[in-house]
């Protein structure tokens, strides 16, 4: 999908991705010539179709996790299906979690908790963040498009 500024006959550039709620995915595009900004809004079914393809509008900022779609989207998964304790030592480690962040993490279903924890840990590690707090989680969610995490 691409957007064309008809007046300028220029391809518009992706600006930002938002998940404003209600199952809507919003992506904004800006004309590099006249500066006009438009937003594309998908309905929940269209948002779901994008998710089902395993792609990220706006591009990926972190690599896909193993079985990411299965873990994120299957609603009848076993809570203990994945043994996250046996990952290789040191991966995503070295980051502290505040009590508030841990409390929030514990509200994530077991089926995906390990993957979500790893995403936040990798996000913090890549940016040199020593402690993951609820505020860091909010920022990461907005930047990475982690709806519901």
């Amino acid at each position, binding site marked *: *999908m*691409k957007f*064309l500024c*008809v007046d300028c*006959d220029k*391809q518009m*550039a*992706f600006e930002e991705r938002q998940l404003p709620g209600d*199952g809507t995915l919003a*992506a904004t595009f800006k004309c590099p010539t006249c500066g006009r900004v438009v937003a594309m809004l998908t309905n*929940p*079914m269209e948002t*779901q*179709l994008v*998710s*089902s*393809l*395993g*792609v*990220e*509008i*706006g*591009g*990926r900022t972190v690599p*896909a996790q*193993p*079985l*990411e*779609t*299965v873990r*994120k*989207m*299957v*609603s*009848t*998964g*076993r809570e*203990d*299906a*994945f*043994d*996250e304790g*046996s*990952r*290789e030592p040191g*991966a*995503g480690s070295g980051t502290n979690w505040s009590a508030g962040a841990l409390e929030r993490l514990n509200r994530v279903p077991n089926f995906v908790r*390990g993957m979500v924890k*790893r995403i936040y840990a990798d996000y913090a590690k890549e940016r040199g963040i020593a402690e993951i707090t609820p505020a860091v989680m909010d920022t990461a969610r907005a930047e990475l498009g982690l709806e519901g995490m």
Partner: protein
Amino acid sequence: MPPIRTYHDLTDADRSGLPEQIGAQRKRVAERLAGVGRVIAVMSGKGGVGKSYVTAHLARALARSGRAVGVLDADLNGPTIPRLLGIDHSPRPTHRDGIEPAVGADGVTCISMAMLLEDGAPLAFKGPSAESFVWRGAMEASALRELLGDVAWGALDALLLDLPPGMQRYVELCDILGAPPAVLTVTIPTPESRDAVRRAMRAAVDRGSRLLGIVENMVGDEFPGSLDRRLAGEFGVPILARLPWRPTPDAWAGLAGRL
């Protein structure tokens, strides 16, 4: 209004890079399967002919003959391979680069949705229930892609894929692999099965798959097993086995030897 240019006329850098993301998914599958000697889809146009049973026992026979074999249970909605391979539902160890397949009877490695779903629960997805047919197929195709590309299969002589009835999963598989897999066809000695299997074999040929041969299953008594001869002649493929209701280990070994 001026004439609108086509999608491909717009060639500026695209930050989303959706084609590149899809390309990366395909590359991951290709890299993961680089150590697999043969990918074989076990399929039939007909349900209830024993595809999973044949897949599991063929895999075991291949393993007993010294080959490294994996089975991907591609029947996401009715997975049975773990039970046939004597695999329990232990959590799967997960690493950054993938998850480890389970190891079943005779050392056959395996992944199946049965290991990931709650006991007795159907495969269900989060998302809007209205018009779910629009996205459910794509979701299942993504799950299949992840089972291929995110499982640490390692070096295998053969990876058998147990496909559900019908052609949908086979078509998805061709797209994900980027090339049609070799196909082993399973049928039973009834005219109804032959007719359905013929359509599936035709579809596989049209897609460019190499047909390895036909296994006629559940042969015995009033079903002597001869209907497959016409199919074999029609498609120029061998009949690899006619299996009775209770095949002996020798029967499985014979089938493995002819593959």
